[in-house]
Protein backbone atom coordinates (compact mmCIF):
# COMPACT_ATOMS: atom_id res chain seq x y z
CA UNK A 1 0.00 0.00 0.00
CA UNK A 2 1.50 3.34 -0.97
CA UNK A 3 1.41 6.44 1.17
CA UNK A 4 -1.46 8.26 -0.49
CA UNK A 5 -3.68 5.22 -0.40
CA UNK A 6 -2.77 4.74 3.23
CA UNK A 7 -3.81 8.32 3.95
CA UNK A 8 -7.06 7.79 2.09
CA UNK A 9 -7.87 4.65 4.06
CA UNK A 10 -7.10 6.47 7.30
CA UNK A 11 -9.37 9.35 6.37
CA UNK A 12 -12.14 6.90 5.54
CA UNK A 13 -11.72 5.13 8.85
CA UNK A 14 -11.71 8.45 10.68
CA UNK A 15 -14.97 9.42 8.99
CA UNK A 16 -16.60 6.14 9.87
CA UNK A 17 -15.63 6.52 13.48
CA UNK A 18 -16.94 10.06 13.65
CA UNK A 19 -20.17 8.82 12.11
CA UNK A 20 -20.67 6.53 15.10
CA UNK A 21 -20.43 9.41 17.54
CA UNK A 22 -22.77 11.44 15.37
CA UNK A 23 -25.25 8.55 15.48
CA UNK A 24 -25.09 8.34 19.26
CA UNK A 25 -25.47 12.12 19.49
CA UNK A 26 -28.44 11.98 17.17
CA UNK A 27 -30.11 9.23 19.19
CA UNK A 28 -29.55 11.20 22.35
CA UNK A 29 -31.18 14.25 20.80
CA UNK A 30 -34.06 12.09 19.68
CA UNK A 31 -34.44 10.90 23.25
CA UNK A 32 -34.64 14.46 24.59
CA UNK A 33 -37.25 15.37 21.96
CA UNK A 34 -39.26 12.24 22.75
CA UNK A 35 -39.20 13.07 26.44
CA UNK A 36 -40.40 16.64 25.86
CA UNK A 37 -43.11 15.67 23.38
CA UNK A 38 -44.40 12.84 25.56
CA UNK A 39 -45.48 15.37 28.17
CA UNK A 40 -48.28 16.30 25.78
CA UNK A 41 -49.71 12.81 25.70
CA UNK A 42 -52.56 11.95 28.06
CA UNK A 43 -56.24 12.38 28.63
CA UNK A 44 -55.88 16.05 29.64
CA UNK A 45 -54.61 18.40 26.92
CA UNK A 46 -52.13 20.96 28.12
CA UNK A 47 -51.22 23.85 25.77
CA UNK A 48 -47.59 24.13 24.75
CA UNK A 49 -47.16 27.57 26.30
CA UNK A 50 -48.26 26.32 29.68
CA UNK A 51 -46.06 23.27 29.33
CA UNK A 52 -43.05 25.46 28.60
CA UNK A 53 -43.89 27.62 31.61
CA UNK A 54 -44.05 24.55 33.80
CA UNK A 55 -40.67 23.39 32.50
CA UNK A 56 -39.27 26.83 33.20
CA UNK A 57 -40.61 26.84 36.71
CA UNK A 58 -38.75 23.59 37.43
CA UNK A 59 -35.36 25.03 36.49
CA UNK A 60 -33.69 26.65 39.49
CA UNK A 61 -32.98 30.36 39.11
CA UNK A 62 -34.83 30.54 35.75
CA UNK A 63 -38.08 29.89 37.61
CA UNK A 64 -38.05 33.46 38.97
CA UNK A 65 -38.37 34.88 35.48
CA UNK A 66 -41.03 32.71 33.80
CA UNK A 67 -44.69 33.71 33.95
CA UNK A 68 -46.99 31.37 35.89
CA UNK A 69 -49.93 31.22 33.47
CA UNK A 70 -50.78 27.59 34.16
CA UNK A 71 -53.23 26.12 36.62
CA UNK A 72 -52.29 24.11 39.68
CA UNK A 73 -53.99 21.05 38.16
CA UNK A 74 -51.92 21.36 35.03
CA UNK A 75 -48.75 21.61 37.07
CA UNK A 76 -49.78 18.57 39.12
CA UNK A 77 -50.44 16.49 36.02
CA UNK A 78 -47.10 17.33 34.46
CA UNK A 79 -44.85 17.35 37.49
CA UNK A 80 -46.41 14.64 39.62
CA UNK A 81 -47.85 12.26 37.01
CA UNK A 82 -46.34 12.55 33.55
CA UNK A 83 -42.74 13.48 34.33
CA UNK A 84 -42.00 10.62 36.72
CA UNK A 85 -43.73 8.21 34.36
CA UNK A 86 -41.72 9.38 31.35
CA UNK A 87 -38.44 9.54 33.22
CA UNK A 88 -39.30 6.12 34.64
CA UNK A 89 -39.53 4.95 31.03
CA UNK A 90 -36.07 6.39 30.38
CA UNK A 91 -34.54 4.68 33.41
CA UNK A 92 -36.24 1.33 32.87
CA UNK A 93 -35.76 1.26 29.10
CA UNK A 94 -32.10 2.17 29.49
CA UNK A 95 -31.43 -0.48 32.12
CA UNK A 96 -33.14 -3.18 30.04
CA UNK A 97 -31.29 -2.18 26.84
CA UNK A 98 -27.90 -1.99 28.53
CA UNK A 99 -28.52 -5.18 30.50
CA UNK A 100 -29.48 -6.92 27.26
CA UNK A 101 -26.29 -5.84 25.51
CA UNK A 102 -24.15 -7.10 28.40
CA UNK A 103 -25.99 -10.40 28.83
CA UNK A 104 -25.88 -11.15 25.10
CA UNK A 105 -22.12 -10.60 25.14
CA UNK A 106 -21.58 -12.91 28.08
CA UNK A 107 -23.67 -15.66 26.54
CA UNK A 108 -22.39 -14.95 23.00
CA UNK A 109 -26.01 -15.51 22.18
CA UNK A 110 -28.21 -12.99 20.41
CA UNK A 111 -31.48 -14.38 21.71
CA UNK A 112 -30.78 -13.88 25.39
CA UNK A 113 -31.87 -10.97 27.56
CA UNK A 114 -31.45 -9.93 31.20
CA UNK A 115 -34.51 -11.89 32.30
CA UNK A 116 -32.88 -15.18 31.32
CA UNK A 117 -30.73 -15.35 34.45
CA UNK A 118 -33.78 -15.68 36.68
CA UNK A 119 -34.53 -11.99 37.12
CA UNK A 120 -38.08 -11.91 35.82
CA UNK A 121 -39.32 -15.02 37.58
CA UNK A 122 -37.66 -13.93 40.81
CA UNK A 123 -39.13 -10.44 40.69
CA UNK A 124 -42.55 -11.92 39.84
CA UNK A 125 -42.38 -14.21 42.82
CA UNK A 126 -41.55 -11.26 45.04
CA UNK A 127 -44.28 -9.03 43.67
CA UNK A 128 -46.96 -11.70 43.50
CA UNK A 129 -46.26 -13.07 46.96
CA UNK A 130 -46.43 -9.58 48.43
CA UNK A 131 -49.81 -9.09 46.71
CA UNK A 132 -51.18 -12.51 47.60
CA UNK A 133 -49.86 -12.69 51.12
CA UNK A 134 -50.75 -9.04 51.74
CA UNK A 135 -47.26 -8.26 53.01
CA UNK A 136 -46.66 -4.82 54.50
CA UNK A 137 -43.22 -5.21 56.07
CA UNK A 138 -41.76 -2.38 53.98
CA UNK A 139 -44.81 -0.12 54.20
CA UNK A 140 -46.50 1.09 51.03
CA UNK A 141 -43.53 0.08 48.90
CA UNK A 142 -43.50 -3.53 50.07
CA UNK A 143 -44.34 -4.86 46.62
CA UNK A 144 -41.48 -3.01 44.93
CA UNK A 145 -38.96 -3.93 47.58
CA UNK A 146 -39.88 -7.61 47.67
CA UNK A 147 -39.77 -7.75 43.85
CA UNK A 148 -36.29 -6.22 43.95
CA UNK A 149 -35.00 -8.55 46.66
CA UNK A 150 -36.44 -11.67 45.05
CA UNK A 151 -35.18 -10.75 41.59
CA UNK A 152 -31.68 -10.29 42.93
CA UNK A 153 -31.81 -13.43 45.10
CA UNK A 154 -32.90 -15.71 42.30
CA UNK A 155 -30.02 -14.45 40.15
CA UNK A 156 -27.62 -15.29 42.97
CA UNK A 157 -29.11 -18.75 43.26
CA UNK A 158 -28.76 -19.28 39.50
CA UNK A 159 -25.20 -17.98 39.56
CA UNK A 160 -24.05 -20.25 42.37
CA UNK A 161 -25.79 -23.28 40.89
CA UNK A 162 -24.01 -22.65 37.59
CA UNK A 163 -20.60 -22.17 39.18
CA UNK A 164 -18.37 -25.17 38.49
CA UNK A 165 -14.76 -25.23 39.61
CA UNK A 166 -14.77 -21.45 39.99
CA UNK A 167 -15.91 -20.93 36.41
CA UNK A 168 -19.19 -19.99 34.82
CA UNK A 169 -19.81 -21.79 31.58
CA UNK A 170 -22.26 -19.79 29.42
CA UNK A 171 -24.33 -22.75 28.26
CA UNK A 172 -24.57 -24.11 31.77
CA UNK A 173 -25.56 -20.71 33.15
CA UNK A 174 -28.21 -20.39 30.47
CA UNK A 175 -29.67 -23.81 31.23
CA UNK A 176 -29.59 -23.18 34.97
CA UNK A 177 -31.30 -19.84 34.43
CA UNK A 178 -34.03 -21.42 32.34
CA UNK A 179 -34.51 -24.31 34.78
CA UNK A 180 -34.66 -22.15 37.90
CA UNK A 181 -36.98 -19.69 36.11
CA UNK A 182 -39.34 -22.55 35.31
CA UNK A 183 -39.37 -23.64 38.92
CA UNK A 184 -39.95 -20.15 40.27
CA UNK A 185 -42.62 -19.42 37.66
CA UNK A 186 -44.39 -22.58 38.80
CA UNK A 187 -44.41 -21.18 42.32
CA UNK A 188 -45.87 -17.93 41.00
CA UNK A 189 -48.54 -19.88 39.15
CA UNK A 190 -49.31 -21.83 42.30
CA UNK A 191 -49.75 -18.63 44.28
CA UNK A 192 -52.08 -17.23 41.65
CA UNK A 193 -53.98 -20.50 41.29
CA UNK A 194 -54.74 -20.60 44.98
CA UNK A 195 -55.77 -16.93 45.11
CA UNK A 196 -58.11 -16.43 42.18
CA UNK A 197 -59.45 -13.14 43.54
CA UNK A 198 -56.02 -11.50 43.39
CA UNK A 199 -55.17 -12.56 39.88
CA UNK A 200 -56.20 -9.22 38.39
CA UNK A 201 -53.75 -7.16 40.38
CA UNK A 202 -50.91 -9.61 39.87
CA UNK A 203 -51.74 -9.93 36.20
CA UNK A 204 -51.33 -6.19 35.78
CA UNK A 205 -47.90 -6.33 37.40
CA UNK A 206 -46.84 -9.21 35.20
CA UNK A 207 -47.72 -7.23 32.06
CA UNK A 208 -45.73 -4.23 33.15
CA UNK A 209 -46.73 -0.60 33.42
CA UNK A 210 -45.10 2.76 34.04
CA UNK A 211 -48.26 4.25 35.45
CA UNK A 212 -47.55 3.81 39.15
CA UNK A 213 -44.13 5.38 39.08
CA UNK A 214 -43.76 8.44 41.26
CA UNK A 215 -40.77 10.52 42.26
CA UNK A 216 -40.34 8.66 45.55
CA UNK A 217 -39.69 5.32 43.86
CA UNK A 218 -38.02 6.80 40.81
CA UNK A 219 -35.14 8.52 42.60
CA UNK A 220 -33.56 5.47 44.23
CA UNK A 221 -34.09 3.33 41.12
CA UNK A 222 -32.61 6.02 38.88
CA UNK A 223 -29.51 6.21 41.05
CA UNK A 224 -29.08 2.43 41.05
CA UNK A 225 -29.54 2.27 37.26
CA UNK A 226 -27.12 5.13 36.68
CA UNK A 227 -24.41 3.50 38.75
CA UNK A 228 -24.91 -0.02 37.40
CA UNK A 229 -25.09 1.19 33.79
CA UNK A 230 -21.84 3.04 34.16
CA UNK A 231 -20.23 0.00 35.78
CA UNK A 232 -21.38 -2.14 32.86
CA UNK A 233 -20.09 0.40 30.35
CA UNK A 234 -16.67 0.30 32.01
CA UNK A 235 -16.52 -3.40 31.10
CA UNK A 236 -17.08 -2.80 27.39
CA UNK A 237 -13.64 -3.97 26.25
CA UNK A 238 -13.81 -7.10 28.40
CA UNK A 239 -17.30 -7.87 27.07
CA UNK A 240 -16.04 -7.47 23.50
CA UNK A 241 -13.30 -9.97 24.22
CA UNK A 242 -15.71 -12.45 25.81
CA UNK A 243 -17.81 -12.33 22.64
CA UNK A 244 -14.88 -14.04 20.93
CA UNK A 245 -14.90 -16.91 23.40
CA UNK A 246 -13.94 -17.24 27.05
CA UNK A 247 -10.59 -18.82 26.23
CA UNK A 248 -9.79 -16.17 23.67
CA UNK A 249 -10.68 -13.45 26.15
CA UNK A 250 -8.36 -15.00 28.71
CA UNK A 251 -5.57 -15.27 26.15
CA UNK A 252 -5.68 -11.53 25.46
CA UNK A 253 -5.51 -10.77 29.17
CA UNK A 254 -9.11 -10.46 30.32
CA UNK A 255 -10.05 -11.76 33.76
CA UNK A 256 -13.07 -13.59 32.39
CA UNK A 257 -14.69 -14.77 35.60
CA UNK A 258 -14.32 -11.40 37.26
CA UNK A 259 -15.91 -9.70 34.26
CA UNK A 260 -18.83 -12.12 34.31
CA UNK A 261 -19.30 -11.70 38.04
CA UNK A 262 -19.32 -7.92 37.86
CA UNK A 263 -21.56 -7.83 34.81
CA UNK A 264 -24.12 -10.32 36.10
CA UNK A 265 -24.27 -8.58 39.46
CA UNK A 266 -24.65 -5.13 37.91
CA UNK A 267 -27.30 -6.28 35.45
CA UNK A 268 -29.19 -8.06 38.23
CA UNK A 269 -29.04 -4.98 40.45
CA UNK A 270 -30.10 -2.50 37.76
CA UNK A 271 -32.81 -4.57 36.14
CA UNK A 272 -34.27 -5.85 39.43
CA UNK A 273 -34.53 -2.27 40.60
CA UNK A 274 -36.22 -1.31 37.33
CA UNK A 275 -38.78 -4.07 37.16
CA UNK A 276 -39.57 -3.62 40.83
CA UNK A 277 -41.34 -0.38 39.93
CA UNK A 278 -42.62 -1.25 36.46
CA UNK A 279 -43.46 -4.93 36.49
CA UNK A 280 -42.23 -7.13 33.68
CA UNK A 281 -41.56 -5.32 30.45
CA UNK A 282 -40.25 -7.70 27.85
CA UNK A 283 -38.75 -7.25 24.42
CA UNK A 284 -36.59 -4.17 25.14
CA UNK A 285 -33.65 -6.16 26.53
CA UNK A 286 -33.79 -8.58 23.63
CA UNK A 287 -34.17 -6.24 20.67
CA UNK A 288 -32.44 -2.94 21.45
CA UNK A 289 -28.91 -4.39 21.43
CA UNK A 290 -29.58 -5.82 17.96
CA UNK A 291 -30.85 -2.56 16.64
CA UNK A 292 -27.76 -0.87 18.06
CA UNK A 293 -25.44 -3.40 16.45
CA UNK A 294 -27.10 -2.87 13.10
CA UNK A 295 -26.72 0.88 13.36
CA UNK A 296 -23.28 1.07 14.90
CA UNK A 297 -21.48 -2.25 14.57
CA UNK A 298 -20.77 -4.80 17.26
CA UNK A 299 -18.32 -3.08 19.60
CA UNK A 300 -19.83 -2.68 23.05
CA UNK A 301 -18.27 0.74 23.32
CA UNK A 302 -21.11 1.87 21.07
CA UNK A 303 -23.63 -0.93 21.56
CA UNK A 304 -24.01 -0.34 25.31
CA UNK A 305 -24.83 3.38 25.19
CA UNK A 306 -26.93 3.03 22.04
CA UNK A 307 -28.95 0.16 23.53
CA UNK A 308 -29.64 2.28 26.59
CA UNK A 309 -30.79 5.28 24.56
CA UNK A 310 -32.86 3.19 22.15
CA UNK A 311 -34.43 1.28 25.04
CA UNK A 312 -35.42 4.55 26.65
CA UNK A 313 -36.88 5.99 23.43
CA UNK A 314 -38.75 2.81 22.66
CA UNK A 315 -40.26 2.49 26.10
CA UNK A 316 -41.41 6.10 26.25
CA UNK A 317 -43.06 5.78 22.84
CA UNK A 318 -44.74 2.52 23.85
CA UNK A 319 -45.99 4.22 26.99
CA UNK A 320 -47.31 7.19 24.98
CA UNK A 321 -49.30 4.75 22.92
CA UNK A 322 -50.46 2.90 26.04
CA UNK A 323 -51.74 6.19 27.49
CA UNK A 324 -53.03 7.75 24.30
CA UNK A 325 -54.56 4.97 22.22
CA UNK A 326 -57.78 4.46 24.18
CA UNK A 327 -58.95 7.75 25.75
CA UNK A 328 -59.26 7.46 29.49
CA UNK A 329 -57.78 3.96 29.69
CA UNK A 330 -54.15 3.02 30.23
CA UNK A 331 -53.38 -0.20 28.39
CA UNK A 332 -50.60 -2.28 30.03
CA UNK A 333 -47.38 -1.48 28.25
CA UNK A 334 -46.53 -5.14 27.66
CA UNK A 335 -49.50 -5.35 25.31
CA UNK A 336 -48.30 -2.32 23.36
CA UNK A 337 -44.69 -3.50 23.05
CA UNK A 338 -45.96 -6.82 21.75
CA UNK A 339 -48.67 -5.77 19.33
CA UNK A 340 -47.14 -2.60 17.94
CA UNK A 341 -43.46 -2.84 18.73
CA UNK A 342 -42.76 -6.26 17.32
CA UNK A 343 -44.05 -5.80 13.76
CA UNK A 344 -42.43 -2.37 13.62
CA UNK A 345 -39.06 -3.74 14.66
CA UNK A 346 -39.31 -6.77 12.41
CA UNK A 347 -39.75 -4.39 9.53
CA UNK A 348 -36.75 -2.31 10.56
CA UNK A 349 -34.56 -5.32 11.14
CA UNK A 350 -35.28 -6.54 7.66
CA UNK A 351 -34.57 -3.15 6.16
CA UNK A 352 -31.39 -2.53 8.09
CA UNK A 353 -29.75 -5.91 7.74
CA UNK A 354 -29.83 -6.08 3.99
CA UNK A 355 -28.94 -9.77 4.28
CA UNK A 356 -25.62 -9.27 6.00
CA UNK A 357 -26.56 -9.77 9.63
CA UNK A 358 -25.41 -13.08 11.02
CA UNK A 359 -25.79 -13.93 14.59
Amino acid at each position, binding site marked *: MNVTENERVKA*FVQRRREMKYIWIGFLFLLLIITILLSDFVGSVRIPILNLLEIYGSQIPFLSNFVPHGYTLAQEQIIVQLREPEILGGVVIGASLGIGGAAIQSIFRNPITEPYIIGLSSGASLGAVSSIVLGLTIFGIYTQQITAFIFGLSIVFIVYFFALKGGRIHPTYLLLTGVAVSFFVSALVALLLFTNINLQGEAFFWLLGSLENINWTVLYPVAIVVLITSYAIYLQHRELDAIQMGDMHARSVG*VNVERTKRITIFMVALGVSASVSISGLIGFVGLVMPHLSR*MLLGGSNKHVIPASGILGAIFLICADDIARGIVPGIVVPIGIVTGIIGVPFLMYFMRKLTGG*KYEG
Partner: protein
Amino acid sequence: MKVELEDVTFRVSSFSLGPLDFSVEEGTITAIIGKNGSGKSTTLKLIHGDLKPNTGSVSIDSSKVSSLSSAELAEKTSFVWQEIYNPMSFSVRDVMNVSGYKRGNDEDSMGEALESVGLSSLIDMDFSVLSGGERRLVTVAAAIYQDSEIMIMDEPTNFLDIDNQIVVYKLLKRLRDAGKTLILTMHDLDAVHNLADSVLILRGGRKVAWGSTSSTLNIENLNKAFNVSFHSYDTVNGSAFAGSYKG
Protein backbone atom coordinates in the same frame (compact mmCIF):
# COMPACT_ATOMS: atom_id res chain seq x y z
CA MET B 1 11.06 -17.22 26.68
CA LYS B 2 11.32 -20.87 27.48
CA VAL B 3 8.37 -23.22 27.83
CA GLU B 4 8.80 -26.36 29.91
CA LEU B 5 6.54 -29.34 30.45
CA GLU B 6 7.37 -31.73 33.27
CA ASP B 7 5.63 -35.11 33.35
CA VAL B 8 2.35 -33.61 32.22
CA THR B 9 -0.58 -35.98 32.07
CA PHE B 10 -4.19 -35.14 31.46
CA ARG B 11 -7.34 -37.15 31.11
CA VAL B 12 -10.96 -36.49 30.18
CA SER B 13 -13.50 -39.28 30.01
CA SER B 14 -12.04 -41.75 27.51
CA PHE B 15 -9.05 -39.73 26.34
CA SER B 16 -5.76 -39.54 28.15
CA LEU B 17 -2.70 -37.57 27.18
CA GLY B 18 0.94 -37.86 28.15
CA PRO B 19 3.14 -38.13 29.98
CA LEU B 20 4.75 -35.20 28.15
CA ASP B 21 8.17 -34.03 29.14
CA PHE B 22 9.96 -31.52 26.98
CA SER B 23 11.16 -27.97 26.84
CA VAL B 24 10.85 -25.47 24.05
CA GLU B 25 13.78 -23.14 23.49
CA GLU B 26 13.45 -19.42 22.97
CA GLY B 27 13.39 -18.25 19.36
CA THR B 28 12.43 -21.61 17.86
CA ILE B 29 9.50 -23.10 16.05
CA THR B 30 8.05 -26.24 17.59
CA ALA B 31 5.47 -28.22 15.63
CA ILE B 32 3.07 -30.76 17.09
CA ILE B 33 1.82 -33.29 14.57
CA GLY B 34 -0.43 -36.31 14.67
CA LYS B 35 -3.77 -37.65 13.59
CA ASN B 36 -7.06 -35.88 14.27
CA GLY B 37 -7.87 -36.44 17.91
CA SER B 38 -4.30 -37.35 18.82
CA GLY B 39 -4.19 -34.57 21.43
CA LYS B 40 -2.50 -31.65 19.66
CA SER B 41 -4.99 -28.98 20.65
CA THR B 42 -5.23 -30.45 24.14
CA THR B 43 -1.45 -30.13 24.48
CA LEU B 44 -1.55 -26.50 23.40
CA LYS B 45 -4.33 -25.74 25.90
CA LEU B 46 -2.33 -27.42 28.65
CA ILE B 47 0.69 -25.27 27.77
CA HIS B 48 -1.49 -22.16 27.86
CA GLY B 49 -3.09 -23.14 31.18
CA ASP B 50 -6.62 -23.41 29.79
CA LEU B 51 -6.63 -27.02 30.93
CA LYS B 52 -5.12 -28.13 34.22
CA PRO B 53 -2.88 -31.19 34.02
CA ASN B 54 -3.74 -34.09 36.33
CA THR B 55 -0.08 -34.51 37.15
CA GLY B 56 3.05 -32.58 36.32
CA SER B 57 3.38 -28.90 35.55
CA VAL B 58 3.92 -26.39 32.79
CA SER B 59 6.10 -23.35 33.19
CA ILE B 60 6.63 -20.36 30.99
CA ASP B 61 9.71 -18.24 31.54
CA SER B 62 10.28 -20.37 34.69
CA SER B 63 7.01 -19.42 36.35
CA LYS B 64 4.21 -21.94 36.66
CA VAL B 65 1.42 -21.29 34.18
CA SER B 66 -1.19 -22.07 36.81
CA SER B 67 0.08 -19.19 38.94
CA LEU B 68 -0.04 -16.57 36.17
CA SER B 69 -2.91 -14.11 36.01
CA SER B 70 -4.63 -13.72 32.67
CA ALA B 71 -2.93 -10.34 32.28
CA GLU B 72 0.55 -11.80 32.89
CA LEU B 73 -0.19 -14.69 30.58
CA ALA B 74 -1.38 -12.40 27.78
CA GLU B 75 1.85 -10.42 27.97
CA LYS B 76 3.90 -13.59 27.53
CA THR B 77 1.77 -15.59 25.09
CA SER B 78 -0.79 -15.14 22.36
CA PHE B 79 -3.01 -17.90 21.03
CA VAL B 80 -4.50 -18.55 17.59
CA TRP B 81 -7.46 -20.85 18.22
CA GLN B 82 -8.37 -23.73 15.98
CA GLU B 83 -12.04 -22.81 15.95
CA ILE B 84 -13.10 -19.27 15.13
CA TYR B 85 -16.08 -17.70 16.89
CA ASN B 86 -18.34 -15.33 15.07
CA PRO B 87 -18.72 -12.39 17.43
CA MET B 88 -21.96 -10.48 16.85
CA SER B 89 -21.52 -7.80 14.15
CA PHE B 90 -17.79 -7.31 14.76
CA SER B 91 -15.66 -5.60 12.16
CA VAL B 92 -12.09 -6.75 11.55
CA ARG B 93 -11.02 -3.73 13.59
CA ASP B 94 -13.15 -4.87 16.54
CA VAL B 95 -11.48 -8.29 16.40
CA MET B 96 -8.04 -6.66 16.34
CA ASN B 97 -8.98 -4.29 19.17
CA VAL B 98 -9.71 -7.28 21.37
CA SER B 99 -6.14 -8.50 20.87
CA GLY B 100 -4.90 -5.04 21.83
CA TYR B 101 -6.60 -5.34 25.22
CA LYS B 102 -3.31 -5.50 27.14
CA ARG B 103 -0.93 -3.46 25.02
CA GLY B 104 -3.41 -0.69 24.22
CA ASN B 105 -4.58 -0.08 20.71
CA ASP B 106 -2.62 1.81 18.13
CA GLU B 107 -3.59 2.26 14.52
CA ASP B 108 -0.16 1.88 12.99
CA SER B 109 0.73 -1.45 14.56
CA MET B 110 -2.75 -2.74 13.81
CA GLY B 111 -2.33 -1.76 10.15
CA GLU B 112 1.11 -3.36 10.05
CA ALA B 113 -0.13 -6.62 11.55
CA LEU B 114 -2.94 -6.83 9.02
CA GLU B 115 -0.60 -5.87 6.22
CA SER B 116 1.71 -8.75 7.14
CA VAL B 117 -1.08 -11.09 6.00
CA GLY B 118 -2.09 -8.77 3.15
CA LEU B 119 -5.46 -7.77 4.59
CA SER B 120 -5.10 -4.17 5.74
CA SER B 121 -7.75 -3.10 3.25
CA LEU B 122 -10.35 -5.21 5.06
CA ILE B 123 -10.02 -3.40 8.39
CA ASP B 124 -13.57 -2.05 8.39
CA MET B 125 -15.20 -5.12 6.88
CA ASP B 126 -17.73 -7.11 8.82
CA PHE B 127 -15.77 -10.05 10.23
CA SER B 128 -18.68 -12.45 9.73
CA VAL B 129 -18.82 -11.90 5.97
CA LEU B 130 -15.13 -12.72 5.41
CA SER B 131 -14.25 -16.05 3.84
CA GLY B 132 -12.97 -18.83 6.07
CA GLY B 133 -9.39 -18.25 4.94
CA GLU B 134 -9.61 -14.49 5.40
CA ARG B 135 -10.90 -15.01 8.91
CA ARG B 136 -8.02 -17.35 9.65
CA LEU B 137 -5.55 -14.72 8.41
CA VAL B 138 -7.19 -12.06 10.59
CA THR B 139 -6.78 -14.24 13.68
CA VAL B 140 -3.11 -14.76 12.82
CA ALA B 141 -2.72 -11.00 12.38
CA ALA B 142 -4.49 -10.46 15.72
CA ALA B 143 -2.00 -12.72 17.48
CA ILE B 144 0.88 -10.81 15.89
CA TYR B 145 -0.72 -7.55 16.98
CA GLN B 146 -0.87 -8.81 20.57
CA ASP B 147 2.94 -8.78 20.38
CA SER B 148 3.85 -11.41 22.95
CA GLU B 149 7.11 -13.37 23.14
CA ILE B 150 5.48 -16.77 22.77
CA MET B 151 2.92 -17.51 20.08
CA ILE B 152 0.78 -20.62 20.22
CA MET B 153 -1.02 -21.37 16.98
CA ASP B 154 -3.49 -24.18 16.47
CA GLU B 155 -3.46 -24.84 12.72
CA PRO B 156 -2.62 -21.32 11.54
CA THR B 157 -2.74 -22.40 7.90
CA ASN B 158 -6.13 -24.06 8.16
CA PHE B 159 -8.49 -22.92 5.35
CA LEU B 160 -5.68 -21.18 3.45
CA ASP B 161 -4.96 -21.43 -0.26
CA ILE B 162 -1.43 -22.30 -1.35
CA ASP B 163 -0.40 -18.65 -1.78
CA ASN B 164 -1.57 -17.67 1.65
CA GLN B 165 -0.07 -20.78 3.22
CA ILE B 166 3.28 -19.56 1.91
CA VAL B 167 2.56 -16.04 3.18
CA VAL B 168 2.02 -17.50 6.66
CA TYR B 169 5.07 -19.80 6.47
CA LYS B 170 7.27 -16.83 5.62
CA LEU B 171 5.65 -14.82 8.38
CA LEU B 172 6.30 -17.57 10.91
CA LYS B 173 9.96 -17.65 9.91
CA ARG B 174 10.23 -13.89 10.22
CA LEU B 175 8.68 -14.05 13.68
CA ARG B 176 11.10 -16.73 14.76
CA ASP B 177 14.03 -14.74 13.38
CA ALA B 178 12.77 -11.77 15.38
CA GLY B 179 13.18 -13.91 18.50
CA LYS B 180 9.62 -15.12 19.04
CA THR B 181 8.99 -18.61 20.32
CA LEU B 182 6.36 -20.41 18.27
CA ILE B 183 4.49 -23.56 19.17
CA LEU B 184 2.08 -24.72 16.54
CA THR B 185 0.16 -27.58 15.04
CA MET B 186 0.04 -28.24 11.32
CA HIS B 187 -1.05 -31.03 9.05
CA ASP B 188 1.29 -30.24 6.17
CA LEU B 189 4.33 -32.39 6.94
CA ASP B 190 6.52 -30.77 4.30
CA ALA B 191 5.86 -27.38 5.80
CA VAL B 192 6.76 -28.76 9.22
CA HIS B 193 9.92 -30.21 7.70
CA ASN B 194 10.89 -26.83 6.28
CA LEU B 195 9.84 -24.63 9.17
CA ALA B 196 10.12 -26.39 12.48
CA ASP B 197 13.19 -26.61 14.66
CA SER B 198 11.64 -29.26 16.89
CA VAL B 199 8.78 -31.67 16.44
CA LEU B 200 6.48 -33.49 18.83
CA ILE B 201 4.66 -36.44 17.29
CA LEU B 202 1.55 -37.72 19.05
CA ARG B 203 -0.66 -40.72 18.55
CA GLY B 204 -3.72 -41.40 20.70
CA GLY B 205 -2.42 -39.02 23.35
CA ARG B 206 0.93 -40.82 23.59
CA LYS B 207 4.24 -39.34 22.59
CA VAL B 208 5.64 -41.10 19.52
CA ALA B 209 8.72 -38.93 19.30
CA TRP B 210 10.14 -35.61 20.39
CA GLY B 211 13.31 -33.84 19.32
CA SER B 212 14.97 -31.78 16.63
CA THR B 213 13.21 -31.92 13.29
CA SER B 214 16.12 -33.64 11.56
CA SER B 215 16.23 -36.44 14.11
CA THR B 216 12.48 -36.81 14.64
CA LEU B 217 10.65 -36.19 11.42
CA ASN B 218 11.54 -39.39 9.61
CA ILE B 219 9.69 -42.14 7.85
CA GLU B 220 9.93 -44.55 10.76
CA ASN B 221 8.20 -42.15 13.19
CA LEU B 222 5.63 -41.01 10.65
CA ASN B 223 4.66 -44.58 9.93
CA LYS B 224 4.11 -45.05 13.66
CA ALA B 225 1.96 -41.93 13.91
CA PHE B 226 -0.28 -42.41 10.90
CA ASN B 227 -1.96 -45.34 9.16
CA VAL B 228 -0.32 -44.70 5.81
CA SER B 229 3.12 -45.80 4.70
CA PHE B 230 5.43 -42.93 3.89
CA HIS B 231 8.29 -42.50 1.51
CA SER B 232 10.44 -39.48 0.85
CA TYR B 233 11.45 -38.12 -2.49
CA ASP B 234 13.69 -35.35 -3.75
CA THR B 235 12.35 -32.07 -5.02
CA VAL B 236 14.04 -28.85 -6.11
CA ASN B 237 13.58 -27.61 -2.54
CA GLY B 238 15.05 -30.69 -0.91
CA SER B 239 13.32 -33.83 0.20
CA ALA B 240 9.57 -34.15 0.73
CA PHE B 241 7.18 -36.73 2.15
CA ALA B 242 4.47 -38.63 0.43
CA GLY B 243 2.15 -41.16 1.98
CA SER B 244 0.36 -43.99 0.25
CA TYR B 245 -2.55 -46.13 1.40
CA LYS B 246 -1.62 -49.34 3.09
CA GLY B 247 -2.86 -52.49 1.49
